[in-house]
């Protein structure tokens, strides 16, 4: 079961750099470092950091088997693997939507939900169905391509959607300052930011990265995995589709129901 899921993740994120990752784990301490930095495998620690009480380890020089091992741990829910995008071309792009204000419990801020809804609406207008994954304080909207595309093209497309989304929010009475929408990959060669892959429980809040189905809403863990595969098989778009979408997006603008 785990090996199937590992292969699914590797296929979905096929252009990510598999020699590096950021590992989010509950474990810490120099003994733990000695365990993961086994000299036989050659794994190196670029740096460790603590943000929001979660230890994070930027690992490099990963052997393929070590990469697979951590993916397995990710699926087993003992850590989170955050992947690094390729510096030039990628087969996935992401809208990472976060709330800028802390909310009590697991409830997402209304503005975050609205932003996710508007981005989805713009993407559907150009026949792209995003894979909507629950992250910590928001959503990751993953779009997958059948082939890698230059980062500058991807970033240009993402930016066009973000600009329209923020304009729609503002004109409909929502506070765009309460939402942070970042794009992956970036439009320069310095791809130094990582993003958590689908399939794990968040180390901090222990919430699984549930997928939101277009009609059924939040899916269970098992159904999320099934839809993850289904989406990859049926919703990946071609580079030509993206070019076409870029054209269709020109002149497209929505209003949404104003905030009450």
């Amino acid at each position, binding site marked *: 079961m785990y090996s199937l899921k590992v292969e699914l993740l590797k296929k979905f994120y096929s252009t990510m750099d598999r020699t590096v990752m950021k590992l989010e784990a509950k474990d*810490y*301490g*120099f003994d733990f*470092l000695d365990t993961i930095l086994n000299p036989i495998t050659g794994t190196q*620690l*670029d*740096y*460790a*950091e*603590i*943000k929001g009480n979660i230890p994070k380890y*930027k690992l490099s020089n990963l052997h393929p088997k070590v990469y697979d091992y951590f993916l397995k741990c990710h699926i087993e829910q003992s850590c989170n693997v955050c992947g690094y995008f390729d510096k030039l071309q990628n087969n996935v792009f992401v809208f990472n939507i976060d709330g*800028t204000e802390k909310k009590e419990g697991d409830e997402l801020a209304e503005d975050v939900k609205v932003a996710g809804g508007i981005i989805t609406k713009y993407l559907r207008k150009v026949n792209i169905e995003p894979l909507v994954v629950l992250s910590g304080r928001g959503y990751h909207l993953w779009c997958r391509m059948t082939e890698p595309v230059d980062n500058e093209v991807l970033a240009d497309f993402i930016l066009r959607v973000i600009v329209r989304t923020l304009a729609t929010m503002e004109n409909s009475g929502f506070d765009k300052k309460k939402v942070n929408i970042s794009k992956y990959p970036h439009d320069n060669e*310095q791809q*130094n*930011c990582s993003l958590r892959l689908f399939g794990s429980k968040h180390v901090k809040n222990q919430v699984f990265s549930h997928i939101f189905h277009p009609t059924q809403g939040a899916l269970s863990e098992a159904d999320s995995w099934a839809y993850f595969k289904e989406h990859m098989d049926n919703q990946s778009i071609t580079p030509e589709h993206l070019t076409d979408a870029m054209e269709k997006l020109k002149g497209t603008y929505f209003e949404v129901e104003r905030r009450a």
Partner: protein
Amino acid sequence: MKTIAIDIDDTLNDFSETLAAMEFTYDEKYGLDQETFKKYLHWIKTEMPDGERKNKELVKLRLTLHREIYKAAKVKPGASEFVQWLKSEGWRIVIMTYRDLRYVLEDTKDWLQENGIPYNYIFSTEDKTSMCNVWGINYLIEDSIREVVIAPEFDIQVFYPIMQKHLDMEFETKAIGYSNFKELKQCIA
């Protein structure tokens, strides 16, 4: 193994002096108008207003300018020899910084290498006291007032390079100030 955490900016290098002395000229590449650039530059060189700490334009400019400082800052006299001495004495050396290493890891590693500063690990955190506490690091060399005051309360032995801000400090601390690395070596030896 004894472990010591060592800060970089204003501890191993002369960050503040370099920042104060360096002249940054306006350039359209910063994506700001000239007046905004001037205002932000002033804040970066003096103190960021509390209400502006999440200002993305300002944060981006600060990171861009700080990168220049990270490269240009000079190692403090005796710093390299001191850290080499720690290594020869069998200490585990952790470089502990507030820097955002997502963006400046290579600059940081290059600077440490160019200046002959050995280390075992690089850690990044906004709360060094907590990180030392959690990781069982009992020694910290650090200039930040916050850590100088708080860390000793958690039984972390802190050594700080005496600067004007420490002389103006309104808080009492159990941390030990030093004037140069020779003096620091005597404290630790």
